């Protein structure tokens, strides 16, 4: 009973290592991370060269950038979370199974003695690593841009309190973690969609469309009753970390919501992937 288990475990780990290294050796992954890193650079440069005074009416946190470079990262993260992050995560998650199937490599992966559930788990974890890599990229690029172009100093929180720069930086990292967790549900949805088809582009598009649909539904007041259960409902809750004291319940709610999506769509992906005929 116990003898094959460690072997399989080790195999899963090495499979995960391979998966992650393959993911981060792809040019596409780097292109997407570069595109994400371009968001804060663009925002920073645009604000640096424009002399228009802030009206307090632009997108959130943009007007705070000129006063404190740390807000480049904050504004970029808030800007990236509705579309840019889901877009890149849709590509990575949609590609997981369908990509292998379209290249004809899925059957070889299944020949390795890892088993389908383990392969599915490895694919999910690989995409999850990207989930966190993406917002961290935005934050790093944002912070570097902010340090280069703008003054930095004590950070003014939404509540009007000021905290030291280091404290603000910690909050920014917590926001990146929040964004990463917020994308896990979408990753599971993408993984499931990816098991349905052999056409990776279709899976990617479907995942992104689902993310957008969820946000559209979240805007309809008539559907207020289902809003708390929508995939994207907690996405913008990351700004609650900029209040004093930070509202950690939002962080917990987000994690629970995403866990729910991971469980449901993980189970669906398991059902589909372990019963499906793999021909390619």
């Amino acid at each position, binding site marked *: 009973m116990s003898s094959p288990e460690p072997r*399989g475990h080790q195999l899963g780990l090495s499979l995960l290592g391979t998966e992650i290294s393959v993911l981060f050796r792809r040019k596409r992954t780097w292109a997407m991370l570069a595109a994400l890193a371009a968001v804060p650079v663009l925002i920073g440069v645009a604000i640096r060269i424009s002399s228009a005074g802030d009206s*307090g009416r632009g997108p959130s946190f943009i007007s*705070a950038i000129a006063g404190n470079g740390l807000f480049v990262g904050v504004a970029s993260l808030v800007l990236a979370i509705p579309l840019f992050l889901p877009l890149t995560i849709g590509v990575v998650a949609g590609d997981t199974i369908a990509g292998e199937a379209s290249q004809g490599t899925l059957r070889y992966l299944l020949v390795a*003695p*890892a088993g389908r559930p383990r392969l599915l788990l490895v694919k999910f974890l690989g995409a999850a690593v990207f989930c966190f890599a993406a917002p961290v990229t935005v934050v790093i690029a944002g912070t570097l841009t902010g340090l280069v172009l703008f003054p930095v100093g004590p950070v003014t929180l939404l509540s*009007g309190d000021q905290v030291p720069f280091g404290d603000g930086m910690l909050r920014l990292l917590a926001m990146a973690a929040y964004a990463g967790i917020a994308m896990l549900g979408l990753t599971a949805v993408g993984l499931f969609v990816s098991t349905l088809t052999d056409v990776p582009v279709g899976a990617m598009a479907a995942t992104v469309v689902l993310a957008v649909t969820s946000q559209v539904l979240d805007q309809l007041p008539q559907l207020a009753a289902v809003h708390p259960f929508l995939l994207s409902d907690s996405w913008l809750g990351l700004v609650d970390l900029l209040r004093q004291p930070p509202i950690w319940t939002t962080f917990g709610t987000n994690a629970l919501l995403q866990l729910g999506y991971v469980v449901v769509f993980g189970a669906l992906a398991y059902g589909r992937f372990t019963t499906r005929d793999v021909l390619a």
Partner: protein
Amino acid sequence: MNRISSHGMRSASAPSAVLRRTYSLPMQHRLLRWLPAFVAPVMIAGVVSVPLVAAATPPSPPPKSAQQVLEMVANAKDITGFSGTVTQTSALGLPSIPSVGPGSSSQTASALDLVSGTHTARVEVAGTTKERIAILDSSAERDVVRNGPSVWVWNSKTSSATHITASGSGTTDSTTPTATTPAALAQELLAKVGATTTVTVDTAQRIANRDAYTLVLTPKTQATTIGSVRIAVDAQTGLPLDVQVLAQGARSPAFETGFTDLSYAVPAASRFDFTPPSNAKVTTKTLTRGARPKAPTSGSSAKPTVQGSGWASVVTVAASAVPSGLASNPTVLRLSTPVPGGRLLHTALVNVLLTSDGRVLAGAVPVSTLQSDAG
């Protein structure tokens, strides 16, 4: 369960069996693989609905009369401090007000914004002189911090802070009678409202994880739009936890504000020391006693008159006291509809009539009452 795991094990030891296994998988096993997909949503639905079901069972604190519950409320001033989250929901039937874009006047819009839609605020209170209310807007926050005679108003959107200090003697608010006992106060209140209102105690409820009595105020008159006011009172401390206002004949509240979580721990004193951020726009105002801010419409010269009594009162503001731009304010124009005799701002609870000759009539009464009062 056992069978599935033994399958997994076999696949781990026999590489090439994986592909073959799929084809030879019996129907039963295929269905078993889908089992988690069926169980997971059911499990989650269970986890989500258990607290809802638990909340649906009313708690049963020792029964109390309306008089006793009111006594508890009067006693609640002994609470040394609390903090919690308050959620306010309005379904007044106002059209949504865009806060940006053409046709919006930001000041009116932000004032009206507070009475429409849903808002969450964090409330912290220590003693009778320290309060902090933070309205948690999306990506923004508005704070009111009161520490004795000094009040700070902070708006994160505009990064502006206003410091209001009350000069003169005493605290800014001394409406709480001190000499009377809670019992006498409750009696007095009941006697006062008794002529117009029926006060009853309804089934207890659970608010913010606390048992609460439900105090129901029902107007005796039919001439008002208000059906009833329901106040949840903490069964242990007497603190009002939730207020619902229901329109005549409505089953769900048109307006509700109440705690969603609450702690009776006294917040740290530092929470009430507001220092405006170094880059904020700071304005300072000093209020002398007697010059406290009034409702913006009431102006200064002509005092508003009241017609009718009790719940069906109608307040009339003379044309001279109405701010001149009110009738042409884009937000007001957007919200109101033309009716015989002027323009009407209609909500589920309150109606406001802006007459053609510039007067403003308002009350929790049907439109016809306002029109006949306008003459």
